[in-house]
């Protein structure tokens, strides 16, 4: 198998279907109704952002799609195949980069590849180097995790998620802890990589502007219980600039809807 086969984008991006999904968390006396009868589809190659205040179940839904948790009822499938466990066709980026400190940058990116059968070690290395180049970290193969800035850590996490060549990328507020400037760079990178690599992306955020900047579609959630309230199509040309006026218009409309649907005391980030 050659590098070009391994990193090819020939396989179509997956289509996700979420049907009547409910999920409840019980801890002690308290029971949290995280998701209540949520249904929507994500098209092949679509970039969908899930927005809502804390506790609206958007991260819960992402974990269900990842297969890290199981729904109480309803079904989630990728290309018609029900999801009930994690799989290499759906890779996750977490808010904390969750990189392994005992491995260097290259080792972290290769971790997922080690579990992928049918590759020699040399091929795995080549693939990892390919993705580190893609995220602009080709000079940091042997750096340790603590030596990286927050933005660089998330770039490594992105390369690690891309390396097994998944069809779906699931991103759980991956830029939440970064400064504004670093975030803006990453908005550019993620749009470029999404287009080049033809991925389906589900992106969770509480930042409305971020959602409008990245998503083809923004799905608005409200909490207690977590439900879908509204969906917004964003048909601005790409690459988008987070500071553009049209984008701000979309964001304003979504923010207004959000305030409408959410009780005033619930915390809402701008």
């Amino acid at each position, binding site marked *: 198998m050659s590098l070009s086969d391994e990193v090819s984008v020939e396989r179509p991006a997956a289509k996700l279907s979420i049907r009547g999904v409910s999920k409840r968390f019980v801890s002690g006396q308290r029971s949290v109704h995280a998701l209540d009868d949520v249904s929507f589809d994500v098209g092949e190659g679509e970039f969908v952002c899930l927005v809502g205040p804390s506790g609206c179940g958007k991260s819960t839904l992402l974990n269900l799609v990842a297969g*890290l948790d199981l729904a109480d009822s309803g079904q989630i499938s990728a290309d018609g195949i029900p999801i009930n466990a994690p799989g*290499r066709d759906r890779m996750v980026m*977490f808010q904390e980069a969750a990189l392994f400190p005992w491995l260097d940058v290259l080792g972290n990116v290769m*971790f997922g590849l080690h*579990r992928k059968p049918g590759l020699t070690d040399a091929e795995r290395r080549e693939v990892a180097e390919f993705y580190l180049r893609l995220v602009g970290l080709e000079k940091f193969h042997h750096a340790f995790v*603590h030596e990286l800035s927050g933005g660089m850590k998330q770039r490594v996490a992105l390369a690690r998620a891309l390396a097994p060549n998944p069809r779906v990328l699931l991103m759980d507020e991956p830029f939440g802890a970064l400064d504004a400037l670093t975030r803006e760079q990453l908005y550019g990178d993620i749009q470029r990589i999404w287009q080049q690599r033809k991925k389906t992306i589900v992106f969770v955020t509480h930042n409305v502007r971020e959602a409008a900047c990245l998503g083809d579609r923004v799905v608005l959630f409200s909490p207690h219980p977590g439900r879908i309230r509204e969906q917004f199509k964003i048909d601005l040309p790409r690459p988008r600039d987070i500071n553009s006026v049209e984008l701000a218009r979309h964001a304003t409309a979504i923010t207004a809807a959000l305030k409408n649907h959410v009780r005033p005391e619930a915390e809402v980030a701008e």
Partner: protein
Amino acid sequence: MKRVGLAALFFAALFVGWELLYRSGFWSPVLLPSPLVVGRYLWEATVDGSLLSATLVTVKRLFLGYVFGLLLGLPLGLLTARFRVLADTLGLLALGLQALPSVCWVPLALLWFGQTEAAMFFVVVMGTLWSVIIATDNGVRNVPPIYARAARTMGSSGLHTWLWVIFPAALPFIVGGMKQGWAFAWRSLMAAEIYVTILSGFGLGHLLHYGRELNAMEQVIGIMLVLLLIGLLADKIFFSPWERFLHRRWGTAK
């Protein structure tokens, strides 16, 4: 190099101070021999081979028991962290026995095994085992759950996750426990060697004991210096490289 020089200077000053105290004649030379006399004892004991053979006997006992305790303690610690039933039983036992001064195992070992190598081995294993179990268990419980979740999304599960994610993530705690286990093992072995004569081999503890019996203070102090040196070397050879590795990877110290 500068740091080595400083250490050398410090110890040289200690020896000079010691010699000056000796020359002041304040204490009887039986209680405080000159460092030169201690040096001569060490030299003679090295030449006649008794020091080397005692060192070998002691280090071998320590090494065998320690490695065995480690090989037993690491998996047991992983198991107590993994299974609640083991945590509530074996984990509790380990917690209790870890607090027990390991020299307390000596009378029991003597009654069970007699004055044999097995008794020494048993004492060293008991010194090592419990703190290694506790440290491993504690280390695993402190691994951020996000590591295992991230690994699961990348196709890792079961034993693979334990070996390649949980275990390395717990290493800083585990190395701390290994160091503590070593210290406990070393102390209990010395106590055992001073306490009982094992005919199959005379260790450093016996030389120390006979030094006292013969009122040979130069032997007592000389052996103590050797013990100190072994402790230092073990730290520098076995533990320092690990700790350097961990600090470099985790970025925890300069």
